């Protein structure tokens, strides 16, 4: 991985802004889908597709690629938008999200869109799939890495912990797990629905190396990914603290936006807010 210089960082942040706009447009056109998690993970997907991953967008099945497993498949609009931005497929396809015959299924299906790696959506399974893939890579001494993004809500699935036991037993240091710690799930705050804390302590007790970072700060996230790659005797899990709905003020930190999309005036407002994000991306009059 190359060092992340300031000018590259600025470009990544600009990419993230474009991807956020694409996500909102996709969700408006699809009129169903998951807004909050998609916007919250945009910076992480941007970091992956434009800085971290060793990949070839025009040759998505290249055998030497790093594998990015998305366990919480419902945030796939962010992944689709980042992939289109990276050149995996034409951006015109983004408008087909969730529509008949589209490669962009409501939840990811690798047989319909190359580059997705796994089928996901039903929660708790990506962690196991990533661990299995990392184990296969260990057997073959493959040079590529496995990354797995999972949600905090799906930590309530017992299967996730079965997978963590396995990853620790076989010291899968070639796999980095990233928990999208956005504190929300469908019905409310995670700590109200089913408390998860103390999370870092739980992972350490499962023999994981734990990193924590701000998941909407690309530099902070990239640094955590770099530190994870230096760990050789344990798998690493990064708790990435993200803001659900990041970029759209009225969605930020609101669990109500987990599984719905903006309509009418909300849609207009969301796009306007993205265009003026922190005043540093685009001006309102652009």
């Amino acid at each position, binding site marked *: 991985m190359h060092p992340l210089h300031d000018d590259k960082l600025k470009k990544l942040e600009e990419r993230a802004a474009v991807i956020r706009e694409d996500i909102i447009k996709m969700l408006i056109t699809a009129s169903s889908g998951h807004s909050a998690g998609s916007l919250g993970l945009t910076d992480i997907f941007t970091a992956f597709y434009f800085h971290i991953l060793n990949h070839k967008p025009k040759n998505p099945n290249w055998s030497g690629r790093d594998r990015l497993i998305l366990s919480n498949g419902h945030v796939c609009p962010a992944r689709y938008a980042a992939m289109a931005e990276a050149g995996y497929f034409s951006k015109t396809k983004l408008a087909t999200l969730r529509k008949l015959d589209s490669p962009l299924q409501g939840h990811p299906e690798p047989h319909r869109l190359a580059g997705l790696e796994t089928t996901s959506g039903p929660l708790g399974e990506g962690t*196991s*799939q990533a*661990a299995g*893939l990392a184990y*296969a890579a260990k*057997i073959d001494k*493959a040079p590529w890495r496995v990354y797995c993004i999972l949600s905090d809500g799906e930590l309530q699935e017992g299967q996730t912990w*079965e*997978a963590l*036991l396995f990853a620790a037993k076989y010291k899968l240091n070639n796999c980095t797990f990233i928990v999208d710690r956005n504190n929300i799930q469908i019905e409310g705050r995670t700590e109200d629905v089913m408390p998860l804390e103390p999370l870092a302590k739980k992972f350490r007790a499962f023999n994981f190396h734990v990193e924590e970072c701000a998941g909407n700060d690309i530099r902070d996230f990239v640094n955590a990914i770099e530190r994870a790659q230096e760990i050789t005797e344990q798998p690493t899990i990064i708790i990435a603290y993200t803001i659900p709905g990041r970029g759209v003020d009225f969605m930020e930190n609101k669990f109500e936006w987990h599984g719905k999309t903006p309509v009418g005036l909300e849609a207009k407002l969301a796009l306007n807010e993205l265009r003026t994000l922190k005043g540093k991306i685009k001006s309102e009059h652009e």
Partner: protein
Amino acid sequence: MPFYLKEKPRLKFAATRDGFGEGLLEAGKKNKKIVALSADLTESTRCLPFKNKFPERFVQLGVSEQSMASIAAGLSLGGKIPFITSYAVFSPGRNWEQIRTCIALQKSNVKIIGSHAGLNVGADGASHQGLEDIALTRVLPGMTVLVPCDAIEAKKATLAAAKIVGPVYLRLSREASPIFTKPNTSFKVGIAEIFRPGKDATIIAAGPIVYEALKAAENLSKKNKLNIRVINCHTIKPLDTKTIIAAAKQTGAVVTAEEHMVAGGLGSAVAELLAENYPVPMEFIGVKDTFGESGQPQELMEKYGLTAKYIERAVLRVIKRKK
């Protein structure tokens, strides 16, 4: 001792799981991509020889069947051919949704081995007697479902499963049952075998109960002068439509026999096919919407109506219904 031992003292017995263990070892020797996954049941699912021979390709997961199904899907993404092994009640029972999403929908090259299927599990009782696994697996698009009738066929089915690119479910039994096929008996996935010719009615069976079906046909020949065709339908999916429709046309009546719930199993698959293509009177031998219980395997077969005697009665009933 089962009573037919007295009839045929030279008949040898082995469980279909034993045949699987031999097949897995042989498949492992032929193909280095094969890995075996165990959820703390290595010996009883007969994976021990494979584990001893190929320790680097054996993965012990502990008691975690759900994760095992998804981990296997991950291994297959990495180019491996994983065999996941457990009891049928746990896999594909407990981990059915993981199999649906990560293996069937994802088209993963994973082999699901469900041992201890059926009532012959015996003393462990209803919680451990898998009677729903054929229904659970055959409902999944793209899944091949194999139910070998004896240990020799189980070995062939294991080797065949290793060669299929895609998901396969292989159903195995705990209890030793008669070995009545030979190493050179034909076995092709998707091709049902006519084990006994006949024109008066057809018994279509899968699993060790095929032997009971053959005994029933023999008895009906002696006592009632009836010529009963017996079909070993080891592949529940894809079903051999040609052989089954031909049997319905030529014999005019069908009895299915399986050590599984009547709902959703082999009988249902045959009924779906014939209802649409060539309806004939049918009778179903199987477990009738009830759970099992503890007991000796042979006692359970008798109590739940899964022996030759019950198959004979079903054949006589179905022949009476012929037009």
